[in-house]
């Protein structure tokens, strides 16, 4: 290859490296500071695990962390079940208004969460649900559902509907067809959808912020309040744990769902 052709490629690689540095460096710095003894983030660094020890004794943060985890699990279970059922129907049946149902999935994704969150707050107060964990779960499931339906539907596109027809012609009931033929085929899509749902709920801040009861809030809301009041590296410690969890969840999802589309 002539030198004229190789330098753009080298420059391209360097450029991607710079982007990765920009994306990861602040997260690394934030994590590094959770191991630094100074309460005021001062240099030089002195390694300590004190902030993690303090965190373990911080009852409000720990209890909100467990609340976040179980809200995410409940959200995942509901959104994955309802979303998979809806995807199956959208895939199998043709009916008038199907296009409308598909378009209905976009508002929860495309409208800023600030608008959705405040709208939920108004409506839930009006009908008497008010603030609190049930309201948070109602909201999280609604936000997660479109992602599950989109991901599972993408997987269903690779499924041959004739397999269902073959099973049915052999006498399988509708439920048997779903359980023995369709679900095993789309299992990886369902798993990816579930992981997306977990991530949407576990990382959700805006909607939780408006719907959570003060004193009974999810982890991101507690962290936001702490950041605004003035914080110590304890917040770095819990933030480091969160980022590790949410990146692990997405890594797991990436094994079942190609973000870059089929190649």
């Amino acid at each position, binding site marked *: 290859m002539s030198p004229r052709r190789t330098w753009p490629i080298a420059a*391209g*690689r360097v*450029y*991607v490296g710079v*982007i*990765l540095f920009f*994306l990861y*460096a*602040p*997260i690394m*710095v*934030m994590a590094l500071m959770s191991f630094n003894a100074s309460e005021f983030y*001062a*240099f030089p660094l002195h390694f300590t695990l004190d902030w993690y020890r303090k965190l373990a004794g911080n009852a409000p943060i720990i209890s909100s962390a467990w609340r976040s985890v179980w809200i995410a699990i409940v959200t995942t279970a509901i959104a994955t079940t*309802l*979303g998979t*059922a*809806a995807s*199956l*129907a*959208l895939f199998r*049946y043709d009916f008038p208004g199907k296009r409308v149902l598909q378009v*209905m*999935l976009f*508002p*929860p994704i*495309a*409208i800023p969460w*600030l*608008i959705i969150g405040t*709208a*939920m707050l*108004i*409506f*839930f107060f*009006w009908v008497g649900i008010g603030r609190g964990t049930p309201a948070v779960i*109602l*909201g999280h*499931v*609604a936000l997660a*559902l*479109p992602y599950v339906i989109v991901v599972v539907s993408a997987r269903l596109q690779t499924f041959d509907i004739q397999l269902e027809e073959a099973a049915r012609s052999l006498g399988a009931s509708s439920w048997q067809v779903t359980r023995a033929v369709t679900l095993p085929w789309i299992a990886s899509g369902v798993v990816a959808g579930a992981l997306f749902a977990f*991530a949407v709920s*576990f*990382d959700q*801040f805006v909607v939780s*912020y*408006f719907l959570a009861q003060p004193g009974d809030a999810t982890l991101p809301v507690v962290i936001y309040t702490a*950041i605004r009041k003035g914080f110590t590296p304890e*917040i*770095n410690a819990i*933030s480091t744990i969160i980022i590790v969890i*949410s*990146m692990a969840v*997405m*890594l797991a999802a*990436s094994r079942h769902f190609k*973000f*870059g*589309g089929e190649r």
Partner: protein
Amino acid sequence: MALTARQTNALRAGVLLSPAYLWLTVAVFLPLSAMLFFSFLSAAPFTTDDWHFTTSNYTAFFSRSLYPDLLGRSLLLSAVVTLCCVIIGYPCAYVLAKQIKGRSREALFLLIILPFWSNSLVRIFSWAIVLRGNGIIDHTIEAILPVDVSINLMFSFPAIVIGLVHSYLPYVILTCYLALQAIDDTLIDAARSLGAPFRTIFVRLILPLSLPGLAAGAVLIFVPVAGSFMEPRILGGRMGTFYGTVIEDQFVAVFNWPLGAALSFILLAVVLVILGAASPVLRHAR
């Protein structure tokens, strides 16, 4: 009564679809309708019996320059962030889609997308740690150069832009990457073999073909940034008053929910206009 096959199918589809769509209706579409209704009330009906219909919440928006100014400021922030993301992200997507091949491409792409799906609040917080005065930036520069520096970007407009670009950059890389890798390489090779310089190939071939992806990424950034409030609050401090933070205030501090609803709805109208204007281009995006 026996059902026809058509009716059975309709019934089955209904059973499978209704839980999900009922949920979406109760948790998204009814709330949005309720908010529209609410924005025409003088007071929240569950706080007082003394309420009536009024358009004063909307006239309040126009009667003072405060709200239109803040909306303008938020849209400006959106424009700046979107522009930065596109300028920084497009070349990166190009390198990934057209220069790097095989497994390393997949791995790099995943590394870029991964932060986008991780906690956005925590990532904004990480910038608060990086940008604070007498922080890591000062120490790094002082370690390399023999000068005393004091760079304090925290609580400024640039700080908010940096944080938001960090949050949304992967979006535009994702959409541009999908559009760019759909371009057939043989087209580019054909143009090159006919003697077209890269500039011409880019302007006449690559850019037009990847425009839908670029537009999709731009819209997907512009819209949520216009409604952002957490990022300006954390990174902007007193500089961080935007349209989104004013809406937040109506709901959590001032408790003027009808005004907040009206302000939210004006933002929604702006968002819908933007989505509508972009839809001819977006329809070609994947």
